[in-house]
């Protein structure tokens, strides 16, 4: 049933990344919605929505950090997995500090992302350092 599927949101300014991740995650039976900007996400997703957000850090306009803060400030229960082309130790630490479930450097293996999503949706409090 559609409602049993875990809901995944992807926010990345690169449409190709969004589509590829969506197709990949759908093969794992997730329900996937993609957005190319933070604004697109906030316009469409209600504050009380649950699930997992795969969030790109480097985006024009409101970047991943700003969007996650806005989400946190609004009291959202969505767990966040940061993705970024750059891997800086400081960014990994920062992601953990702001309460993200994980940080993945692009390109990453689908299975790694899925493992993180499973952890995120099963135990939203747990933090895994990648």
């Amino acid at each position, binding site marked *: 049933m559609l409602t049993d599927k875990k809901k995944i949101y992807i926010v990345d300014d*690169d449409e*190709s*990344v969004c589509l590829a*991740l969506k197709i*990949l995650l759908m093969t794992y039976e997730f329900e996937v919605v993609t957005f190319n900007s933070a604004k697109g996400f906030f316009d469409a997703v209600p504050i009380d929505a649950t699930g997992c957000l795969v969030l790109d850090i480097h985006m024009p306009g409101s970047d991943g950090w700003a969007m996650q803060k806005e989400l946190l400030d609004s009291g959202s229960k969505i767990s966040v997995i940061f*993705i970024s082309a*750059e891997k800086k130790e400081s960014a990994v630490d920062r992601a953990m500090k702001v309460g993200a479930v994980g940080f993945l450097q*692009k*390109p990453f293996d*689908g299975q790694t992302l899925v493992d993180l999503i499973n952890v995120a949706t099963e135990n939203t409090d747990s933090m895994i350092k990648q």
Partner: protein
Amino acid sequence: MTMKPEKKIIAKGMRRAIKKEPVRQSAGRKVAKKALLEQTDQKNLKRRLRQQTSELKIRSGQLKRGADREKIADLKIEEQREELLHVTRVGKLAEFVSSLAHEISQPLTAILSYAQAAQRMFAGREPQLQEILQHIIDDDHRAAEVIRRLRTLLKKSKPSLELLNISDLINDTVTLIITHITVRNKIINFELDSRLPSIQGDRIQLQQVLLNLISNSLEAMDAGSDSQEMLIKSSRKDADTIVVEVRDSGCGIPAENMKKLFTHFFTNKPDGLGMGLSISRSIIEAHGGRLEAKNNRDRGATFYFTLPVNGKKDS
């Protein structure tokens, strides 16, 4: 009375004589003196001339040294300017590589995800397709690794060292591009010493150097050479050093390019970035070795690098 005037006269004459005498004497001496003086003057003049000449020589020497110093100072300034330009270029390059890495990572993410999605969609079916998908995934990883290393290189971080057998590494590296070599109708020969002692190095970085040297050789042979054979040789230079040679039978290196070969952004290829050899040299130097080039006696060029055995410094 008469005496008086006589006396007077005499006296006068005497006086005159006495008076005059010195005058005459003086005139004679003057002449002698003049002659002496002239002689002395000439001597003095000569001496002074000699003195002045030697002073001039010293001065001109000083001036020359000054000019030399100026030349050296100019050279130093030129060197510093080059260094500065280099730093700026490397700085700009790091910036450029960083944004390039970001831009390339995006499609690499998409490619990897598409391929893995397809693999899952065809799981247990279509073995040939599965194999192709796996190649796509492997190459995607390889490209990501190159970007990661390039970033590391420009950050000047220390390489990750492991014990390596250089001949094995050469074989592994050639495997990566053997298709490329065969497709271009090139022949690659090996003279690999299997008994070489291991070296300490960064596998990916050394592979990058080998790939760079091999692809340069291939391109040199593309440039209208009738021979299409290249040779990779590994041997022991001395107790503490091994040497790897990549010899081609291509167009060789024009003398005027020899000095600039390893400079950043120097390239003779229309689509070259001019980074390959300069990065390769910095990799080899970071490993304690040297990367050099020479033209072969018959034809083509040889690029060769040394590496210290087991991390010993190459002297």
